[in-house]
C-alpha cells in the first residue's frame, strides 16, 4: 500500500469514524445519566435519515432546510421516547430500563417496516456531496471530505452546550448525582429530556450524513452502525463525551484499515469491530477515558 492509498484510506476512515462518533455521543450521554444503554438510539439514527428523505422527496424542501427539520423532528422523537417509555421506569431497577430499551428499539424498527416498507429507498444527497476533490494524486469524494468537517462543527456546538451553558452544567451535574441535583432546585426530568433531544439531534445528523454516504435507506439501517457506535462509546469510555468522539474515530479507522490492509478480511469487517469490543470489555471495561469510580468519604 503506497502513501497516497494510505492517505485516501485515512480520509475514508475519518469520515466513517465521524459518523460513529455522532451516534456514540447519544449512547454515552444517556448512559452517563441513567446508567443504561439506550438500544433505541440506533433507530433514532434511522428516523433521522427517513425524516430527511421525506422532507426532500415528498415535501420537496431545499436540502439544508430538510436536514434542519429532520434533525429537529428526530430530537422531538427522542424526547418522546424518553417521556413515554423510559420515564415510567425511572425508579425501577436498571435492568427494567434496559429491557424497555430493547422493546422500544424493536417497536420502532417494526413500525418502520410496516409504514415505509422493507424495500430500500434511494436517498437524494446534495450535489456537493458527490463532487470529487483532487489532492495531489489522490481523488476523494465530497462525502469523505464534508462528513468529517460537518461532524467537527456539530461536535463543537455540542461541546459548547455541555460545557459552557447552564443546561449543560445541569446535565453534567445530573450525571454525577441525580438526587443532589434535585436538591439544587433543578427539574431533573426536564434536564434528561434535553439530554435525549441533544443526543437524538446528533444521531439524526449522523443518519442523514450516513444516507449521503450510503444512499439506500431501510428501516433496519441503524442496526449495525448502532452496534459499532456502541462499541466506540465503550472503547472511548462509556459515560465520557470526549471518549465517545475518540472511540468513534478509532472504530472508523480500524474498520477501513482492516479492509485496506487485507482485502481478504473485508467479509469480517464487522467481526473485527466486535472483537475490539470483546477485548476492551475484558481488558479495560472503563475504556480509554472512562471514569474509574472514585469515592471520597
Amino acid at each position: 500500500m503506497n502513501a497516497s492509498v494510505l492517505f485516501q484510506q485515512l480520509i475514508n476512515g475519518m469520515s466513517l469514524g465521524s459518523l460513529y462518533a455522532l451516534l456514540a455521543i447519544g449512547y454515552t450521554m444517556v448512559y452517563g445519566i441513567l446508567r443504561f444503554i439506550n438500544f433505541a438510539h440506533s433507530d433514532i439514527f434511522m428516523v433521522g435519515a427517513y425524516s430527511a428523505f421525506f422532507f426532500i422527496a415528498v415535501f420537496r424542501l431545499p436540502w439544508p432546510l430538510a436536514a434542519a427539520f429532520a434533525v429537529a423532528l428526530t430530537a422531538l422523537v427522542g424526547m418522546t421516547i424518553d417521556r413515554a417509555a423510559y420515564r415510567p421506569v425511572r425508579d425501577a431497577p436498571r435492568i427494567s430500563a434496559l429491557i424497555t430499551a430493547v422493546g422500544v428499539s424493536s417497536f420502532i424498527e417494526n413500525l418502520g417496516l410496516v409504514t415505509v416498507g422493507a424495500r430500500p429507498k434511494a436517498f437524494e444527497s446534495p450535489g456537493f456531496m458527490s463532487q470529487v476533490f483532487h489532492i495531489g494524486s489522490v481523488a476523494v469524494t465530497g462525502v469523505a471530505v464534508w462528513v468529517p468537517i460537518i461532524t467537527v462543527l456539530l461536535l463543537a456546538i455540542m461541546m459548547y452546550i455541555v460545557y459552557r451553558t447552564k443546561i449543560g452544567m445541569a446535565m453534567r451535574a445530573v450525571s454525577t448525582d441525580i438526587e443532589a441535583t434535585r436538591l439544587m432546585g433543578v427539574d431533573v426530568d426536564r434536564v434528561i429530556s434535553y439530554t435525549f433531544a441533544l443526543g437524538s439531534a446528533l444521531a439524526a445528523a449522523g443518519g442523514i450524513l450516513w444516507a449521503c454516504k450510503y444512499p439506500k435507506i431501510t428501516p433496519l439501517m441503524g442496526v449495525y452502525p448502532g452496534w459499532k457506535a456502541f462499541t466506540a462509546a465503550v472503547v472511548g469510555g462509556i459515560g465520557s463525551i470526549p471518549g465517545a468522539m475518540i472511540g468513534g474515530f478509532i472504530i472508523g479507522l480500524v474498520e477501513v484499515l482492516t479492509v485496506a490492509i487485507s482485502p481478504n478480511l473485508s467479509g469480517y469487517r464487522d467481526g473485527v469491530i466486535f472483537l475490539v469490543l470483546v477485548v476492551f470489555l475484558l481488558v479495560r471495561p472503563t475504556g480509554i477515558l472512562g471514569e474509574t469510580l472514585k469515592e471520597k468519604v
Partner: protein
Amino acid sequence: MSILKVRDLNVHYGGIHALKGVSLDVPEGTIVTLIGANGAGKTTTLRAITGLARASSGSIEFRGRDISSVSPHEIVRLGISMAAEGRRIFYNLTVLENLMMGAYHRQDTEEVKKDLEWISGVLFPRLRERFSQKGGTLSGGEQQMLAVGRALMSRPKLLCLDEPSLGLAPLLVQEVFRVLSEIHDEGCTILLVEQNAKAALKIADYGYVLRGGTITMHGTGEELLADERVRKAYLGEGE
C-alpha cells in the same frame, strides 16, 4: 412564628416504618437541632422535609403551605435548601460551577453575584482560591464548606444541614460551627442534624431528641444539655 411545622409525620421505606409520628416546629430566625443515634430517623426527617422521601401520613407545613407532596425541586424554589449527608459534591464540576448549581433556579443575577461574593469571600475564603478546581479534588473539609456554601447559594429561608461535622478534624468542626452562627446572624433559619450533640445543642435555640423514629424529648438547647438522660445517652457522660 414557626416557619416550619411538622405534624404527626410518618415515613415508610423499604418495609421499614422509619418515622412514627414526628412533630416539630422551627421558629423563624432560630437554630433548631435534631439529635439522636444512628438510625433514629434524623436523616429521614430531613429527606421528608426536602421532598426526597414521601410522607405516608402527616403534614409538613412551610410558611403556611403544605409541602408534603411537592416535588424536591419546587421545595427548593419555595425556600428550603439542604446540605445533604456525605456532602454530595459534583466532583466533575468546578468549585465555581458547584456554587452556581446552588443558584440554578434564581433569576436575580445581581443578587446571585452578591451571595457568591459573601459565601466565597467572607464565609469560606478558601473556596475562592479553588474556583477553577474540580470539586472532587478538594479535601473533606473543603468539600463540606462547598456543600454548605452551595446550599446557601439558593438564599434559603430555611437551611437544613445533615451532619455537617461528620468526619472532620476537631479544628474544622469548630470552623463549621463558627460559620453556622455567622449564617444564623445573617437571619437564616437553620435545622441542624448532628451526631456531635454537644456542639449542636450549644448553638441551638431548641432541640429535639429522636429515638427509633419518634421524638422522645425536646427543650431548649440549655435544658437538653443539662438533662441527665441526654448527658448519658448522647454526650457520652456519666457511669
